[in-house]
């Protein structure tokens, strides 16, 4: 399978894994410094394996929100994986266990790499190599992060509470190039911040989905030019 892919693609996959590993290290470290036991980020990374949802659930849990709100936010974020599953369904034909593993390893990145190619063998190779490399590097990096986080004492003095929102913004900002997304996100952010003093923790973030009304009311904004464009818009959100 390695031979199927050209060097450029392999290099790109390695770079994506490296970048995501840095996010994963911060995930592990932030969870531990936020007061959670080390097994929580480690187990969550293995069984959920979706960075955005992991951060969302973690953030709401650390803000004192209930488990229901944390799980709801994570699931709403992961709803975008639904169309991705259809986009790579042709790759995931075959035995039930390879379907199951392939589905679990489906991420924005592995789908994006699969969609770069039309030829079935190349699509398969890109998807599987990216998916497995991401899973291994992501989980090792999370474990390293929990280890490193254990050494940090006073998190406020180190300004680590600023690291979490900074990571989230860095992940989501590229997607704001798109006008419809930007308007929806702006409205959502204002609503969420304004609602924070009034509602129990966790709910304000879910209330941000009101921003989607702005996108729905202008149907033209919902038309991505190509299927690849739609994945491209989601790709920046891990």
């Amino acid at each position: 399978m390695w031979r199927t892919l050209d060097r450029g693609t392999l290099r790109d996959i390695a770079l994506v894994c490296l970048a995501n590993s840095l996010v994963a290290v911060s995930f592990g470290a932030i969870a531990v410094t936020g007061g959670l036991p080390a097994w929580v980020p480690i187990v969550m990374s293995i069984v959920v394996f979706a960075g955005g949802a992991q951060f969302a659930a973690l953030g709401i849990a650390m803000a004192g929100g209930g488990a229901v709100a944390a799980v709801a936010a994570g699931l709403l974020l992961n709803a975008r994986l639904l169309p991705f599953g259809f986009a790579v369904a042709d790759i995931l034909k075959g035995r039930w266990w390879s379907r199951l593993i392939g589905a679990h390893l489906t991420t924005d990145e592995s789908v994006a790499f699969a969609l770069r190619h039309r030829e079935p063998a190349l699509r398969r190779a890109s998807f599987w190599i990216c998916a497995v490399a991401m899973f291994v590097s992501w989980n090792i990096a999370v474990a390293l992060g929990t280890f490193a986080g254990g050494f940090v004492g006073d998190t406020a003095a180190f300004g680590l509470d600023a690291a979490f929102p900074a990571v989230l913004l860095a992940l989501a900002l590229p997607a704001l190039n798109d006008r419809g997304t930007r308007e929806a996100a702006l409205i959502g952010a204002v609503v969420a911040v304004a609602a924070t003093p009034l509602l129990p923790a966790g709910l304000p973030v879910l209330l941000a989905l009101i921003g989607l009304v702005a996108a729905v009311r202008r149907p033209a904004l919902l038309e991505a030019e190509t299927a690849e464009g739609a994945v491209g818009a989601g790709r920046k959100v891990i």
Partner: protein
Amino acid sequence: MSLLAIAVLAAGTLAFRLAGPLLQDRVTIPEPLRRLLSIAAVVLLIALACTAALTQGYGFAGWARPAGVLVGAVLALRRVPLPAVVIAAAGTTAVLRLLGVE
């Protein structure tokens, strides 16, 4: 986060991922829904970032944290690599607190 909460999140996530491979012959996802789901993900992440940057409990988080996040955001927009973004954000907040800004 309890083990049960993590298990529910994991099961739901796997269901989203498995639906395509299992139902591909019977169902197609309309393009507007596809797009709506990816916008929803960004809306949630931005809202989470803003509430985490500005609020603590039910009140304002103080100036040091949002100032650090702002520095991180500006660097991220300039395509500075993520580790530098994180260090700059945390460093700014830490220095401001050292100077007595809360």
